[in-house]
């Protein structure tokens, strides 16, 4: 091909693009993100309810502060990380503002410390292990997979230029959402428990999400 033909090909491309033009609503990105997130969260909730079921005392714990604090920790982490991920979906995004991510953890931390302070040292291990520490992290990670898939679907139309950071923040978002869903099952309402095992799942999901994002988020 000569230079002139290649340049002519560019002209054809421009014509094709103009013909293909459809209006894009202002909220297109947010809508797509919400759609992916909702579909993923619903799949994850269905998996939980059909697979292992809700905790039997779910109706009773609605009055318990411990339950709501744990749920708030998960959902606040989900909110800040989804917000950060959404920003990273734009090509001209700069990686800053990520300092918000640990804020829910830091706000929840004093609750855990006060639990430790209120109990004798001999009770610390039972507080930490709660009921089901063996499965908690794994289940949160497992339930985060549908959410991560939903986010990944949304990001395929976005233009992240920091794939690894985007994947990591998306991984964190998906684990935080799935931790919120897992609250329907998780029988332990102490802050010490959630601060350790939920946060472990968040970290692992961020790590795995970063690794997965590196290749799969290229465009």
């Amino acid at each position, binding site marked *: 091909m000569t230079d002139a033909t290649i340049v002519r090909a560019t002209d054809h491309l421009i014509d094709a693009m103009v013909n293909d033009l459809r*209006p894009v609503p202002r909220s297109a990105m947010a809508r797509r993100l919400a759609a992916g997130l909702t579909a993923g969260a619903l799949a994850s909730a269905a998996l939980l309810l059909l697979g292992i079921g809700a905790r039997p005392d779910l109706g009773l714990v609605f009055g318990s502060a411990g339950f709501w604090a744990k749920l708030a920790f998960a959902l606040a982490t989900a909110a800040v990380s989804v917000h950060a991920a959404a920003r990273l979906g734009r090509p001209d995004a700069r990686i800053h503002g990520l300092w918000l991510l640990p804020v829910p953890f830091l706000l929840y931390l004093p609750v855990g410390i006060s639990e430790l302070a209120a109990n004798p040292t001999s009770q610390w291990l039972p507080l930490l292990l709660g009921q089901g520490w063996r499965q908690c992290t794994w289940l949160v990670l497992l339930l985060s997979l549908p959410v991560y898939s939903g986010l990944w679907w949304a990001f395929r139309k*976005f233009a992240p230029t920091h794939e690894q950071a985007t994947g990591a923040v998306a991984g964190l978002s998906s684990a935080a959402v799935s931790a919120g869903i897992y609250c329907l099952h998780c029988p332990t309402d102490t802050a010490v428990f959630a601060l350790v095992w939920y946060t472990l799942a968040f970290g692992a999901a961020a790590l795995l999400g970063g690794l997965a994002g590196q290749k799969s988020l290229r465009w």
Partner: protein
Amino acid sequence: MTAEEDNLKDWMTRALDGDAAAYHSLLRRVTPLLRAFFKRRLRADSETEDLVQESLMALHSKRLTFDRKRPFTPWLYAIARYKLVDHFRRSRQFVDLNALDQEPGNGDFESASVAGILLTELLADLTPKQQRAIRATKIEGYSIAETAMAAGISQSDTKMSVSRGLKRMAARLQGKPQ
């Protein structure tokens, strides 16, 4: 902000609302900018045109990621730079990304306009006094004494405004939260 940026952004905004004529004007104007961007950084002309086309297609398929509240030029060149890095990645050439950013532009529209936009953003963050002091001494080239006289404040006050303002701008550039 340059007039060029205003034009491009106006076309882009109208294109997002479905205005085909504005979109055509935008693509016509953006193509030579992209060509210049890649030509300066690549050896073969065929590679240049490939990347121009890839960037145009990305502009099209990723146009929902353009934020109407932000300038167009940095968005466009972020796509172009990504496609360039991707090209180097695929062809297994190693490239120093920092050098890519720092490459001195000779009458380069990209660096000039992006720097201009960045400067405007950074200045907007300062107090009016600091803004005036930095504009006068660092951009327009007046002396401290002239600036102080014009503003009707003392010379030490002017110096203080300049140094505090520069410090704040440097902190923002390094991405420190305020």
